């Protein structure tokens, strides 16, 4: 860098959170008109450093100098007044206000006079000027809602400029942008640099380091590794600086036999989130899914679970059922169609009556004797609401019924475009095959009361059979189905997504599978107590008793209760999402032991983790994701931290 004024210097910044030493005497400095890239793994302390700079956290020790003057930043407001702007990954804009209004939100110029009218013309002009300065073409009067993410980011940058910002922090600005948009962003950033703004740029894309960076600082595990001129360093060197977290943790890993395929994922795609994910998970295997935060790991897990919709791809669970479960591009049986089917059936009932004349003559019906149960009379009396004295002989009901059927097929065609034409044919054919079949079977009988019985209840059965038929080929992959097939997800946010905090251990364990406790329509509470005890002992859950509320348990024990819940559900394919986040070392080891024990007992385990040592220590096989794509599938013995990081951070 040429000699330029020093904007910011952070010296020996130290910060601890309960249980974590987040920053260990970190140094950082920034010059005017410089882009300084901040690199580090997940949890290396980048965000903490930025939050200290922005005034959201307070350093335990250390000094901050801004423009060579020692400064204390007590809150976010002060930080902003000092000219520090942070653009977070989640954009901070009001979607329904226009771009110009967003840029000036909180600082609108007011015209003099009693009317207190905001000078919108000036707001618009100045917004245009800022956009000009950034050299981007955005209609400043359009609502922010209508802009792309990239443009919204520009609006954020423009907002920072209105604050007269000197230090701009960008937290992974390119993570959701496309190639062209990134170029635009870089252009804007370079323009800012020319205007003398110092930019701190956090990124997970190592390619970007050489593209726009002037200097780069690497943090590892809260430690300051060094600062280098970008021109002087290789990517490989940076990677070696980032990895190397201590491997002294113990992992209870032992080799196991792997069984058949438990979960087969093929071509799983959700546009813009992940793309073409393929992997197999075997029984008895522990597979680690690694990658940076935001690479789409959790999203894949949720899609496999059926919790989120996907655009294409299949998930197959082999042992539970042999049938293939397609996730998407499959029609369902909409409610309106079911209702229409029943209506058509009821409309068509007189058809049977007319074909087999004389079997039900309501005119001669003796109203004093109640109709026999399960007879046609009963049906007319109770379902239709009284005897049909005027069962029509003319063609009207059939024309109406036929019209409804045509309407239904047409509606199917127009409203549910994703239906494959084959499904339409099958749907149409099956309905009529059943109808004709029922009629033919009915006509085989000659005795009237049998006819009636078969006719009416056969018709009802027909609809039921149709529902069942549809179930076999029109099924959506939903969490309900996934759980029924034996899949269990231990979510990252176990406190809210995995457990009910204010209810007891026993309730949380059994609530996902109460059916298992039901005897003669009632919950068998004795059995619940025994079974819950069994699980508490098996998983070594530290709890005073079963009735203790979950919120009084430690993080590790809460995680074990989530596991107990799935074991109680007899799940044998388990996906752990960040199973040991926020858990102390001892409990970590226990969770790992349980995971291993499960695999030994034949369950298939997938573990999503941001901690490389955990991934390396526990997995038999390691999958790496990068920006929504599976970039590597490495065996345990071949994997190293450097290799995983390279797959996670750089494009091939």
């Amino acid at each position, binding site marked *: 860098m040429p000699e330029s004024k020093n904007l910011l210097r952070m010296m020996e910044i130290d910060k601890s959170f309960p249980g974590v030493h987040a920053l260990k005497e970190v140094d950082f400095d920034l010059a005017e008109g410089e882009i300084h890239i901040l690199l580090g793994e997940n949890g290396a302390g980048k965000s903490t450093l930025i939050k200290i700079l922005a005034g959201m956290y307070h350093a335990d020790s250390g000094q901050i100098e801004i423009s060579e003057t020692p400064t204390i930043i007590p809150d*976010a*407001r002060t930080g902003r007044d000092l000219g520090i702007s942070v653009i977070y990954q989640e954009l*901070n*804009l*009001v*979607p*329904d*206000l226009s771009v110009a*209004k967003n840029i000036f*939100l*909180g*600082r*609108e110029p*007011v015209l003099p006079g009693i*009317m*207190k*009218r*905001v000078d*919108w013309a000036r707001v618009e002009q100045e917004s*245009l000027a800022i*956009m*000009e300065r950034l050299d981007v*073409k955005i*209609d*400043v*009067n*359009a609502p922010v809602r209508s802009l792309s993410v990239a443009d919204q980011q520009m609006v954020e940058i423009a907002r920072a400029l209105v604050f007269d910002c000197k230090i701009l922090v960008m937290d992974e600005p390119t993570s959701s942008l496309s190639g062209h948009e990134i170029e635009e962003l870089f252009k804007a950033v370079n323009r800012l640099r020319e205007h003398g703004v110092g930019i701190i740029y956090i990124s997970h894309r190592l390619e970007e380091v050489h593209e726009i960076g002037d200097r780069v600082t690497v943090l590892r595990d809260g430690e300051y590794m060094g600062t280098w001129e970008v021109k002087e360093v290789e990517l490989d060197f940076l990677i070696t600086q980032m990895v190397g977290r201590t491997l002294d943790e113990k992992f209870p890993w032992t080799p196991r036999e792997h069984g058949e395929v438990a979960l087969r994922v093929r071509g799983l795609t959700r546009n813009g989130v992940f793309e073409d994910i393929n992997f197999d998970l075997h029984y008895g295997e522990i597979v680690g899914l690694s990658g940076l935060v935001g690479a789409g790991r959790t999203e894949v897990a949720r899609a496999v679970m059926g919790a989120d919709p996907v655009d294409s791809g299949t998930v197959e669970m082999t042992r539970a059922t042999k049938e293939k479960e397609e996730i998407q591009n499959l029609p369902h049986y909409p409610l309106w169609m079911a209702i229409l089917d029943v209506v058509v059936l009821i409309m068509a009932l007189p058809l049977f009556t007319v074909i087999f004349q004389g079997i039900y003559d309501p005119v001669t019906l003796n109203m004093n004797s109640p109709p026999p149960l399960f007879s046609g009379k009963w049906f007319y009396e109770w379902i239709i609401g009284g005897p049909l004295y005027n069962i029509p002989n003319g063609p009207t009901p059939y024309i109406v019924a036929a019209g409804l059927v045509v309407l239904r097929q047409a509606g199917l065609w127009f409203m549910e475009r994703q239906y494959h034409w084959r499904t339409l044919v099958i749907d149409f054919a099956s309905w009529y095959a059943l109808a004709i079949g029922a009629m033919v079977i009915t006509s085989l009988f000659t005795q009237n009361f049998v006819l009636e019985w078969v006719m009416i209840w056969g018709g009802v059965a027909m609809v039921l059979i149709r529902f069942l038929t549809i179930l076999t080929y029109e099924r959506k992959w939903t969490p309900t189905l996934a759980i029924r097939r034996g899949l269990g997800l231990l979510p990252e946010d176990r406190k809210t997504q995995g457990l009910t905090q204010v209810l007891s251990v026993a309730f949380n364990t059994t609530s996902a599978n109460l059916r298992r406790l039901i005897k003669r329509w009632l919950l068998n509470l004795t059995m619940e107590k025994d079974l819950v005890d069994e699980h508490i002992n098996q998983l070594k859950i530290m709890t005073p008793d079963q009735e203790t509320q979950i919120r009084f348990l430690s993080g590790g024990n809460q995680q074990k209760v989530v596991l107990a819940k799935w074991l109680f559900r007899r799940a044998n394919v388990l996906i752990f999402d960040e199973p040991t986040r926020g858990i102390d070392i001892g409990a970590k080891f226990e969770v790992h032991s349980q995971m291993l024990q499960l695999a030994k007992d034949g369950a298939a385990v997938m573990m999503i983790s941001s901690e490389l040592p955990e991934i390396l220590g526990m997995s038999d096989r390691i999958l790496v994701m990068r920006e929504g794509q599976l970039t590597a599938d490495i065996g345990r013995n071949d994997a190293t931290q450097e290799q995983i990081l390279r797959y996670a951070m750089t494009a091939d």
Partner: protein
Amino acid sequence: MSAAASTGNEKLFLGYSVKDIPFERLLLISAFIVLMIFYTFATENFLTLENFVNVVRRDAWLFFIAYAQTLVIISAGFDLSQGSIMSVVSVMAWSAMLHFGFFIGLIAGLGIGLLCGVINGFFVGVARVQPFIATLGMLFIGSGAAQLWTGGLQMGGAREGATLPKHVEDAYVLLAKGNLGPIPFTFIWIIIALATMWYLLKYTRFGTYVYALGGNEQTAISAGINFPAMKIAIFGIGGLLCGFAGLLLSASVSAAGEPRLGGGDQLLQSIGATIIGGTHIFGGRGGVLGTTLGVFLIIFLVNGLNIMGIDTYRQQIVVGLVILASIWVSTLREQKN
């Protein structure tokens, strides 16, 4: 940089072109026109100036509480206490008029409306109670207070010994039924309220912050907007408008203090008009122009049904269907985008 300016730049009115009018608004306008045409053919007396003036005069109160509701809903709030505020204002203003004359009574009524609104705003903005709950509390407090004040009876009118002096009562009635030349007073009140609200929402910081609070509260707060003050101001203005609506309604009904004045479906109509008018129920979008259309749609829908001789129960069903349909349309539009 007018890069996005439309090619067909036909200016309609005050510099707006057709393309600036949102789809929902066009739909609403066309629905209104269709309704008008239908009633014109279905009834005899619908399309007369007399009918129009009568309807707007009788239902003028709805405009005010609908504007109040619109303001509150845009800021991602909800005001359930509107009917109660109307009741309280009705009885208190009547009492004040009895002792101190018309103008003091008028100011007392507005002041009490404002006070109720500010209390709502205090609970929402300072105590951070959910608007739904805070105003639910005010709903009960208000209706309880109104009935306590009068012992549950109507004040004035039929009651012995307590009637407003003649000139006061005349002035009170004039508020709702008077004319300025050919123009009814209520029209003037409505236009003043509409213009003020429109100006507030469009051209002042306050209005922008109302939209910002509704669109993204966190962003608004981090942009330095004073959340408690804004909420107090929003609910305060809402209360003031409800107070005026209460005065108008009691003046047009009987010029009496009626403790159950706002106990009917006034609140529901104000919410209905706001929603039909295109204001987003979770805030951030909408405006008083749309609400005005919504009010017009509701009052003329009901008026036409009245003329056709259709009973109140069926009318309510129709209003409900219109509300459902309007929400459904906007939901469909949103899903499409």
